[in-house]
């Protein structure tokens, strides 16, 4: 029997790994993948809570989060494609034309 | 617990051996049938009536030289055919072959894993089949392979959408996602969903053929197009695994069509497993017939057919079924 605590700790750990991924990577696609890791961590804790309460509401929220994550991944990758087309590089440090 | 593990291992062993045997002999049957369609005979020299041909093919493939392209990523190159074969084998674990037997006081359901979301598991594993192709194309470090792989995977993911939507009519009528229950709800001949959902059956079969990259949708891997598509650079047993994966997918699609539309193992007089195999063979014969008869689709025709024709038709099917069930 796995207590709820364990799922929540795992979720926090995965979220932290996702945050580290966003902060230290320069490849825009890997940044996107780290955002997906963060979304998954949150999904895990939502489902853990939903199952331990016996209410399907958490799972419905996860369903909607998955749909939104798919839409966001599609639009984000399209933006990355366009950036690559115009400056031949997807290093996030170089997309800094608006920096003061 | 121990009885459960023993029975499951036995089921897995039996299903796996029968499955691999059918896959091997499917290549032989296909060559003979296509030959008869083309008024020639087909392989009949190796063994009585050519029955040892698959074994000869296997020995040939095993003894060929292993070719690794220069600058290819070794790990992914070897992993790709494995990733292509495993989903094909996994799907067999949720197909019901027959009613339950009672041996030694234990009730054995003739299905390896009776999931409550059985049909969704089939779609999940089908979606994972795309990765073998994508990895094969990318890791071969060759333009032909990459283009063939991108085309093939684009085709597969496009037809997956209509694949899933076309059976929603069946699920609405059956009221369950459990494959055993769907088969049990087709008890009489005229309860079979092929009569209640003819459009769903047609769309599902067409999408199944497109999913397995078989003629007439086999542009990405036909010999006369793009050299050989994503398995250009593969030799010996790795090519053999792609080959087996294709036949295994064919067998899977036939098994799922049988379960959802043709009544699974239901039928009078003969034992259920025999009925199941009979229905699967009928559908496989249809597959081979299509390959022998129809010309290939061009790639843009293929994609516009999948998105602009089959998808609206599948949605219309769901709409019509909903209205029909409400009235």
């Amino acid at each position, binding site marked *: 029997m*796995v207590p709820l605590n364990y799922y929540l700790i795992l979720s926090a*750990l995965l979220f932290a790994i996702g945050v580290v991924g966003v902060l230290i990577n320069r490849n825009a*696609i890997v940044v996107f993948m780290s955002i*997906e890791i963060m979304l998954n961590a949150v999904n*895990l804790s939502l489902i853990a809570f939903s*199952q*331990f309460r016996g209410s399907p509401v958490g799972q419905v929220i996860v369903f909607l989060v998955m749909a939104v994550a798919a839409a966001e991944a599609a639009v984000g990758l399209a933006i990355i494609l366009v950036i690559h087309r115009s400056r031949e590089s997807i290093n996030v440090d170089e997309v800094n034309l608006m920096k003061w | 617990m121990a009885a459960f593990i023993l029975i499951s291992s036995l089921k897995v062993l039996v299903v796996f051996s029968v499955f691999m045997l059918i896959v091997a002999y499917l290549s032989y049957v296909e060559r003979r049938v296509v030959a008869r369609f083309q008024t020639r005979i087909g392989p009949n020299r190796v063994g009585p009536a050519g029955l040892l041909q698959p074994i000869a093919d296997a020995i040939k493939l095993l003894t060929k030289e292993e070719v690794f392209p220069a600058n290819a990523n070794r790990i992914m190159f070897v992993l790709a055919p494995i990733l292509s074969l495993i989903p094909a084998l996994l799907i067999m674990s949720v197909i019901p072959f027959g009613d339950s037997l009672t041996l030694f006081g234990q009730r054995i359901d003739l299905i390896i894993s009776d999931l409550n979301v059985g049909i969704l598991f089939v*779609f999940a594993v089908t979606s994972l089949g795309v990765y073998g192709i994508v990895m094969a194309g990318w890791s071969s470090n060759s333009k032909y392979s990459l283009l063939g792989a991108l085309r093939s995977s684009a085709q597969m*993911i496009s037809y997956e959408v209509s694949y899933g939507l076309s059976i929603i009519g069946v699920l609405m009528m059956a009221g369950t996602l459990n494959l055993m229950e769907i088969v049990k709800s087709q008890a009489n001949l005229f309860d079979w969903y092929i009569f209640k959902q003819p459009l769903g059956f047609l769309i599902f079969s067409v999408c199944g053929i497109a999913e397995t990259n078989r003629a007439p949708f086999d542009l990405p891997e036909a010999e006369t197009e793009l050299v050989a598509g994503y398995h250009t650079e593969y030799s010996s047993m790795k090519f053999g695994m792609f080959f087996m994966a294709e036949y295994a997918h064919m067998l899977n699609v036939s098994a799922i069509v049988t379960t959802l539309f043709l009544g699974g193992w239901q039928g009078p007089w003969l034992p259920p497993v025999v009925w199941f195999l009979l229905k699967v063979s009928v559908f496989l014969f249809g597959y081979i017939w299509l390959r022998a008869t129809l010309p290939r689709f061009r790639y843009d025709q293929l994609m516009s057919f999948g998105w602009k024709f089959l998808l609206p038709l599948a949605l219309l099917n769901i709409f019509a079924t909903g209205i029909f069930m409400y009235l």
Partner: protein
Amino acid sequence: MTLTIFLILALVSVLSSILVITQKNSVISALYLIVTLGSQAVLYFLLGATFIGVLQIIVYAGAIMVLFLFVIMLLNLKRDEFGPDQKKGQRVLAFLFTLFLAVEILAALKIGFSDGGTPAGAVLNPASGSPSEVARSLFIDFLYPFEIVSILLLVAILGVVVLVKKRF
């Protein structure tokens, strides 16, 4: 028994997500992310949420990651073309701040559960993970968000097609 499976899965998810963020080759990162998503799906099955577990494989591992792989292959990136950090010590600061974040989250969990309603006594209820329960809740209580998400997906598709067109 479930505890052993959980620990193995947790280890696999954490290891593969660490490997996602530390690889130089983006295709290998994408493949490790597929492993992470797969182990997440098995965790959902362990919790009894079979519908969402299968959906995770179909949507995340089967569609979104294929999209990622397509884009990575179309961009044809070379390995390791990203130079050293722009600011010194940026990575060390990132690790430090994330460590603070993780400690904060765990502390918030501990404090939040310390006044009764403790999760240690919570019991798993797998019946609420079946497709019929989720569907009932989705189409009755959450119908409005469901319709809005479908419009959102339509807008996303249109946006992508407009963004990527080379000429109008």
